[in-house]
């Protein structure tokens, strides 16, 4: 009798817990959908502003006519609105979205890999590796590849992208080798290797800037500050392909990163191939960082802030974090680019400065708010 009462109580308690869990999950799902819808609406707003603002303010109805009906009226500049929208503003807005999405997505991957919300893609040396290769191309292409036609040399050539991407992959491959030789304590070794790679890259970049002539040095400087001014449909296509390729792996990747979050031993006993998860994560994040840095230069902070903020809003599950990072990163960098090209109009600010300027204070205020609420970080 007494046993059956205990059993009944226990059953009732477990049932209550299940009901509680279900309602918590439901609440989380509702909160997540709010975050996604909010980010989507904000991106649409920034998109409309990006298409409207510039040398000529184009009305919303005019933009709709242009995009959906293909109708165009000449502006007062004698420059067709279609050129302003299709050739200048739309590719630029899309490119800023893609670059932000890639950097933030790489940030989520790297932070998940280290189980540390305060590391970023540049930390393991992949970003700096890409930057160094690009700098090598800028400085050496004129001398070593002088047999190439002028349009294939220097900063204007697509070899710049190829080199930056190659550099990111080379560093990842090196990290991959280090990780294969390592039994346990993988994350620590990788972090230390990343620090060593970064230190080497900084010294090599210093040496390259010494070798560079005045023009090359200025190219290096502007390139390292980041800019989306040279947006073209070709670049948009290139980054879209890379991001789509990575996004297709999200279902698998999110499961893998969630398992890794439990700890390496738990993940191993769950039957997951940890090495494979780690290596593929590194390669995918290198692909994201290399391709975006090669096109826009260095836009720091997007890969650090966005994942962290989203983790505060959505919780730690990578199932929602990865797709949300695409929207969050896109929103941050597109806002930064809109500010970069409008604040000191008709001049333009380097976007790297704006991204850090927008993201930094926001990030700080969120951290302080979270600390007040919970007494500690999530």
């Amino acid at each position: 009798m007494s046993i059956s009462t205990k059993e009944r109580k226990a059953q009732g308690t477990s049932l209550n817990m299940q009901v509680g869990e279900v309602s918590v999950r439901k609440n989380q799902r509702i909160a997540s959908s709010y975050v996604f819808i909010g980010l989507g609406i904000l991106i649409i707003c920034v998109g409309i502003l990006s298409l409207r603002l510039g040398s000529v303010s184009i009305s919303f109805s005019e933009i709709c006519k242009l995009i959906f009906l293909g109708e165009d009226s000449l502006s007062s500049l004698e420059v067709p609105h279609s050129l302003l929208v299709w050739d200048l503003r739309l590719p630029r807005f899309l490119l800023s979205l893609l670059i932000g999405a890639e950097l933030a997505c790489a940030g989520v991957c790297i932070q998940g890999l280290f189980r540390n919300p305060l590391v970023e893609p540049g930390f393991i040396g992949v970003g700096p590796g890409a930057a160094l290769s690009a700098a090598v191309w800028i400085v050496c292409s004129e001398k070593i590849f002088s047999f190439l036609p002028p349009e294939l040399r220097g900063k204007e050539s697509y070899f710049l992208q190829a080199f930056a991407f190659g550099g990111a992959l080379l560093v990842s491959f090196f990290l991959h080798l280090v990780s294969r030789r390592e039994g346990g304590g993988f994350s620590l070794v990788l972090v230390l290797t990343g620090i060593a790679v970064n230190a080497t890259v900084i010294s090599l970049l210093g040496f390259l800037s010494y070798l560079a002539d005045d023009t090359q040095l200025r190219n290096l400087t502007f390139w390292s500050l980041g800019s989306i001014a040279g947006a073209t449909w070709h670049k948009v296509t290139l980054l879209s392909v890379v991001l789509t390729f990575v996004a297709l792996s999200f279902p698998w990747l999110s499961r893998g990163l969630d398992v890794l979050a439990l700890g390496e031993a738990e993940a191993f006993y769950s039957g997951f191939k940890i090495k494979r998860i780690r290596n593929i994560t590194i390669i995918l994040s290198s692909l994201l960082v290399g391709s975006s840095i090669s096109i826009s230069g260095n836009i720091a902070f997007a890969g650090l802030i966005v994942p962290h903020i989203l983790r505060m809003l959505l919780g730690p599950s990578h199932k929602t974090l990865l797709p949300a990072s695409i929207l969050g990163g896109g929103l941050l960098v597109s806002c930064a680019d809109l500010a970069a090209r409008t604040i000191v109009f008709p001049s333009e600010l380097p976007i790297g400065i704006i991204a850090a300027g927008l993201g930094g204070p926001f990030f700080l205020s969120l951290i302080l708010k979270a600390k007040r609420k919970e007494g500690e970080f999530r």
Partner: protein
Amino acid sequence: MKHFFLALSLLLASFSGIFGEEKSLRIVTLNGTVTEIVFALGKGNLVVGNDTSSLYPPEATKLPKIGYQRALSTEGILSLKPNLVLGLEYAGPPEVIDQLKSAGLQVIIFPGLPSLEQTLQNILSIGKEIGAEEKAKKLTQEIRKQANRVTEKVSRLKSKPKVLFVYHRGTNLAQVSGTETPADEMIRLSGGVNAVTGFKGFKPISPEAVISSQPDVILIPSRGLEGLGGISGVLALPGLKETPAGKNARVISIDDLVLLGFGPRLGQGMEELYNSLHAPNSGKKP
């Protein structure tokens, strides 16, 4: 009579067309030297915007700025509604130049080689584009006269002083000019010898290298001199005290754009530098 009026109105229309075109020219200049040339040709009133390196004449600094010549923005330039964009080969990024062309603007990019002949050629070409050919011819003749005067004096020199050009950016970075720079060319044109020939462009060098280059004169643009806090600041640079220039405190300072601009004031710059280099007791005392 009707035919006469028709002919007259056509003639007037064609005249107004010519002058109308002249009036409606809206120029954006992408480089300080180009800005200076357009103003020197008396067409400064047609310039509607320029880049941040356009610091002369003073009227040019009051115009809207479109950013630095190597980091231009398409929409920034379009907003000024120009129909002619003039720049030197440094203008970029290249995508922006392409976008300006596809927006239907006439974009003309001139070579930026720092040489007397290139400067004269650029002045003539710009004159042709903005309808100031006569003035451009006169200006180039004037510059050539000044340059010839200096060249003739230089050819009679028995010895040429070794000149170390110091380029100062920021507080802790002093670089010197090697070969293939505007500074190197100005030193050569004005009857000096560049003390540093081991590398191309501007680079920082060690105090030992400064001492071994043994310059007779230090040449520094005036804004760099201000940045270093005057002559005493220049002489305090590592190694300089051990050179003839340092011992005799021979420091020559000339306005940045006059000295390095290779624009309308090139002849003036050559004369100024020649006089400073070869006049007895030239150079500034701390």
